[in-house]
């Protein structure tokens, strides 16, 4: 199963992947664990996830084609 990953700000300098095969991963908690294992520096950054253009506040199931955004703290304005 493949999902799309987009990342922003300083995380875009760290996590540079676009498509990810997530066989064995079924939700955002699992994805988070996987990403932090591959990119250990991610553990040091506060970040939020958006799933299909919606910010998520709890673990959410992933499906084929899901779009997950990894977002460091906002700094607009």
């Amino acid at each position: 199963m493949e999902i799309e990953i987009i990342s922003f700000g300083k995380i875009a300098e760290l996590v540079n992947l676009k498509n990810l095969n997530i066989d064995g991963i079924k939700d955002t908690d699992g994805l988070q664990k996987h990403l932090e294992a591959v990119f250990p520096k991610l553990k040091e950054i506060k970040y939020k996830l958006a799933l299909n253009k919606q910010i998520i506040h709890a673990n959410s199931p992933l499906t084929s084609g899901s779009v997950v955004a990894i977002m460091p703290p906002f700094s607009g304005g």
Partner: protein
Amino acid sequence: MEKLFHLLIMTEKKIKNIFVQGAISADFIADSIAKHSSKTEIGGHSIFLGQVRADEIDEKQVAAIDYTAYEELALAQMHQIREDVFSKYPLSCMHVHHSLGVVNAGEICLFVFTSSKHRKPAMDACDELVERIKAELPIWGKEIFADASHQWKENK
């Protein structure tokens, strides 16, 4: 037909863009103000302008901020903020513009503009919009130093 028309209105409302490429010019702001002279029910306008500061960080000075955003999510979030603020305050108008790309120190990167019959709702709505824009919109500022090195801005 009516349904389609309604859908078109909804769509247009949804995709209201706040992003402009580069700095927001004083002329753009003047045009926006001048457009309200026909709205003679308005008694007060409140405006907030964010300007890029030449902060000194570890003896290096910020020359510009390069803004990126998760645009689709930002516009959806802004749509919600707009609805919330319009239903909380009796406003005549609300306009929000935010820069993308490079904005030099001394240039304007955020323009929030609210208008109402009496001054208080315009002022309170403007304050609330600025707070929410900074806290809730997925926008990131990369502070670029004179030597081309950078660091990522963090809002307090």
